[in-house]
């Protein structure tokens, strides 16, 4: 009750008042103050995002709501509405452009991922079939796949004779993630596959991979990956970057799994939830967090 009242008073009165006073004192609007006081990265970009979200100007809030925002135009709008003189604040234009590219890029990525995820695997689509066979060919170059429907799929951790049924809610995104891992990081993928055959700490490589897709997808939609993307990438994050993050999480989870010394595979969901909680705390709590490693560097 008191907190609600406080929130109301703070957002409705105190916050605008403080902004107004600071504006008078420094001669700069909130966006300018954020840009000049915070280093480039998640701290700055997320503050800018918050500031735009809370803005009293509809045009500024709309930058966050609309799809396909033209960043150049948006920055011009901001400078017009906030009457920012480019001759006085010379860096504003450049810094704001960068921030907006990051913000809009994340939203764009969300859309792309959603479309990819919603595309179900189809045996009639030659592109899907090629990807699936590529997955097998790269991972097991020495074993020939006897037929498209085969018990052999079980060797790389699919559940049945036809991998099609395993993609489920992650659709083609799950397959693209796996194919990226095995083609771009073939050695790492083979190492993971060999870990997955461990008598005690073993797991089903492919379907764990699809579960990792689910995990990364939830981190993305929950906004947790903003910290990483805003810190690690200057421009707009792409599908490739998402794949990189996926590989990072697969590798990292594999280590976490073995460190947890599970009794058997039945512990999977408990340990996965624990890992997800850990990553969320890390990405939410530490604004400087970056997922470091070979997987996220190369892209």
């Amino acid at each position, binding site marked *: 009750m008191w907190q609600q009242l406080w929130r109301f008073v703070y957002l409705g009165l105190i916050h605008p008042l403080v902004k107004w006073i600071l504006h008078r004192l420094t001669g700069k609007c909130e966006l300018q103050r954020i840009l000049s006081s915070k280093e480039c990265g998640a701290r700055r970009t997320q503050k800018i995002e918050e500031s735009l979200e809370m803005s009293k100007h509809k045009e500024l809030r709309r930058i966050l709501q609309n799809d396909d925002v033209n960043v150049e135009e948006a920055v011009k709008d901001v400078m017009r509405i906030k009457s920012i003189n480019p001759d006085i604040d010379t860096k504003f234009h450049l810094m704001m452009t960068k921030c907006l590219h990051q913000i809009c890029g994340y939203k764009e990525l969300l859309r792309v991922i959603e479309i990819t995820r919603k595309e179900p695997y189809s045996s009639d689509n030659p592109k899907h079939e090629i990807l699936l066979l590529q997955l097998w060919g790269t991972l097991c170059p020495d074993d020939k796949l006897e037929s498209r429907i085969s018990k052999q799929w079980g060797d790389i951790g699919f559940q049945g004779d036809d991998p099609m049924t395993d993609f489920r809610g*992650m659709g083609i995104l799950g397959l693209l993630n796996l194919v990226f891992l095995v083609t771009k990081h073939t050695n790492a993928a083979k190492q993971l596959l060999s870990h997955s055959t461990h008598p005690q700490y073993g797991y089903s490589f492919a379907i764990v991979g699809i*579960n990792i897709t*689910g995990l990364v997808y939830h981190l993305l939609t929950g906004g947790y990956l903003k910290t990483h993307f805003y810190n690690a990438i200057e421009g707009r994050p792409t599908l490739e970057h998402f794949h990189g993050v996926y590989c990072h999480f697969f590798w990292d989870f594999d280590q976490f799994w073995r460190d947890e010394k599970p009794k058997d595979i039945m512990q999977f969901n408990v340990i996965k939830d624990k890992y997800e909680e850990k990553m969320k705390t890390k990405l939410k709590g530490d604004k400087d967090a970056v997922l470091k490693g070979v997987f996220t560097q190369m892209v």
Partner: protein
Amino acid sequence: MWRFVKGVKDPSETKFKVDKPLTISQAEYNNNNQNEAQTNFKHTLTNWYTKPPGGDSIKWRTCWKPPDVLVVRHSYLRSQSKDMGLLSLLRKLKSAPDKELRILLLGLDNAGKTTLLKSLASEDISHITPTQGFNIKSVQSSGFKLNVWDIGGQRKIRPYWRNYFENTDALIYVIDSADKKRFEETSIELAELLEEEKLTGVPVLIYANKQDLINAAPASEVAQGLDLNGIRDRSWQIQPCSAATGEGVKEGVEWVLKTMKPSGKGRK
């Protein structure tokens, strides 16, 4: 007044469901230590988390108003239980628990067990991934608390099924009615389950799932394929359903509850 819902999904939490909005002055609580309880309550209110009904677990926030569901971390309960104890307070507050039923959800991989589980719990079914290990949810249904265990159906995992047989009140066996090629495999698995000593006499509900697909076999054909008429040692039922659309799911659960009540199989 409060219903106690033990957190089953995440063992590090206990969930408390509140039937009625809470008020800060808890005079209605017939509690000997009312003052103490009140202070404790006030003290802890901001430390509790609330999950908006139907909301995403990510959006938990510190609560400032009477919540629908309270989630209290075990570690917090432990830290509180030394002085007076939030735990004992909550124990006093909870009403008589519902009858609990342990329900086992089994079937081949891709039969739709997890989708069915989520459908039972009225959760979003669009992000499902293959189950490694198991999922568990508890669902409230007409005075019963159903603890539903969804165990992965992959061939590699099937040997672990037996670890979950103990104290099972009902078995739900899920079949992909559109996957006729595997009717034989699924019927062998079911026959083996029915011979398990620990599952003797346990009623079995067979969901002929995926009825929304055009190539799905009707329930009668599934029943024939599985030779269900040969089951004589327990009550059984076949229920056509579609976990994806939700059709037929409720009817199946109703049958389970109906078989539970007269026989008094439900344990306290």
